[in-house]
């Protein structure tokens, strides 16, 4: 199977990139091809990068409280480009009920603080296998 391509992105103005970098490194160590956007990205910059880089997964890290604005916008921009096939997942300081609302709106699973990176790796692998099986 080809390597899974992941874009790890930091939407909005928050500068907390410790989690994003730890996750990016863990996914790379698990054999995925990882691109990290750097800080302070707009949803437009993220969606464009995801499409241009032809990734399978976008992982959004957000700790600023702006998740209810920025995450749906990334989803909408990808959909507008016909890219519903890209998994939008992520995590950060996101209260449970907001996670539920975002997942209902079409994101994949969202993860909170303290999640082992092995759980993210497993989640992305499983999602990818399921998608490949569907399209095969």
């Amino acid at each position, binding site marked *: 199977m080809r390597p899974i391509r992941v874009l790890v992105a930091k939407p*909005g*103005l928050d*500068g907390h990139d410790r989690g994003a*970098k730890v996750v*990016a490194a863990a996914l790379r160590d698990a054999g995925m091809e990882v691109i990290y956007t750097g800080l302070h990205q707009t949803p437009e910059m993220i969606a464009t990068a995801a499409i241009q880089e032809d990734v399978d997964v976008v992982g959004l890290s957000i700790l600023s*409280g702006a998740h209810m*604005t*920025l995450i749906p916008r990334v989803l909408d921009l990808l959909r507008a480009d016909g890219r519903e096939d890209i998994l939008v997942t992520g995590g950060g300081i996101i209260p449970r009920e907001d996670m539920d609302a975002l997942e209902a709106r079409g994101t994949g699973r969202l993860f909170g603080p*303290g999640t082992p*990176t092995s759980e993210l790796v497993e989640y992305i692998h499983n999602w990818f296998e399921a998608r490949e099986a569907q399209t095969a």
Partner: protein
Amino acid sequence: MTTAEMLELDRLREEVAQWRARFDAAKKRNALFANSGEVVEPLYTALDISGDAAAAEVPGEFPFTRGIHPTGYRGKLWTMRQFAGFGTAPETNARYKYLLSRGQTGLSVAFDFPTLMGYDSDHARSEGEVGKCGVAISSLADMETLFEGIPLDKVSVSMTINGPAVILFAFYVAAAEKQGVAATELRGTIQNDILKEYMAQHAWVYPIEPALRLIVDNFAWSAEHVPLWNTISISGYHIREAGATAAQELAFTLADGFTYVERGIARGLDVDDFAPRLSFFWDIHNDFFEEIAKLRAARRIWARHLKERFGAKDTRSLIMRFHSQTAGVTLTAQQPMNNIVRVAYQAMAAVLGGTQSLHTNSMDETLALPTEQAVQVALRTQQVLAYETGVPNVADPLGGSYYVEALTDKLENEAEALFAKIEEVGGVVRGLETGWLQRQISESSSRQQWEVEQRRRTIVGVNDFVTEEGELTIPLLKVGIEAEREQRARMAEMRASRDDALVQGRLTALRDAAKTDANLMPFILDCARAYCTLYEIRAAMEEVFGAYREPVFF
């Protein structure tokens, strides 16, 4: 050393050797007996401390290992200063009045991300972020509202702002003028530490060199006009939160401090004119004794370098005054009530280390901004420590402890070794440009994550002692989008009521001055007084200075 003393040491060596044999033979737990990265010995004795250790020192005397005041906390307790801010200026003003009514003794402003980055609340980049994790302040008008009914000659105020720090400081000075309070009466601190922004916290605006110029402008201007104000809070907090070890936090922060001193001196300032207003800010992590030793070592290193390397003569230049905050990164979303206990231990370490002011984190901060109830518990944690435990009764009560003294020496040595490495890579500024410093922090962060995932490092409730019933739910503070709507309306009103010709004139004057070597503080203050907005002032200088671009890596 007398013969009797030498015989005594020989006897101790022999006893330690016997103990070591018994220790090695005994069965031991399988755990990580280390503080950040370094293995800790199972026992410390007089053999582990150097002859000239702080045991021979008293508090209030050079090199201040044992504290900056001869009276310890008997003269004055630390300032209980809870960092707070959310939503709009009126909402945060109400929270400040609540905190002051509950016995808090100083204020500390948390700004929202747009403000931290120099964007107005009505800028496109601010959408969704206004008032979310701090208060939105886009002009003098917001700053006036923030401190409405709070006399700025009576309350000391700390402001956590860096990239656009000088602009927010100008809003503050202008707001005080409006209250009829002279700048000379203002007491407080502006964080203004841009080097750690590039290193760890990432709320930057301009490239490194012009950013350093603005900081030195502020040192020079404030020494003359706002003499009681701390012009910078050189911060290890964010460096540690980003993943640094205690020794790295200590060394990188002090190296930043030395860089600012060098820049001030290079401007032609006398070190004793600005060094007394430099303050520090440390992160208080879980490893109790290591944190205490870190604070003791920090004071000693600063005093020695200022005296010996920079030729400071005024005692006030030599003493390191600092704020502390318990480590946000140690809080867990799982079983959040446990955080109260973590914070209490960390607060005690800060006080045993001799902090001048303290913020205790609230239990719910891995989930959202804290609720009033959670903040009250955090504040009460400090009050119990101050008034019930007896800990503040004696200055530096751990001075002379073999372990704490040995750790203090060790951290000082590690910091000196790291200063040498920073010199090797070309200094702090070069180390940031090449990403060397950022990489050191990243590597430590990855190692800690690995230790947690391998369960070599235990986090109660996360990788051990996990409860089956799932997350304990606690009430969370919600900051809705109303704040953004309200703030946009306030901005529109303010923009409509100001003198546009004056605004443009002041911005032009600032832009022109930025092209020269002039001190920019008076120009920025004039912009503030004319109700130029944060972003307008930021943009005027950006036209001359350009913007910072980070080296991206992981």
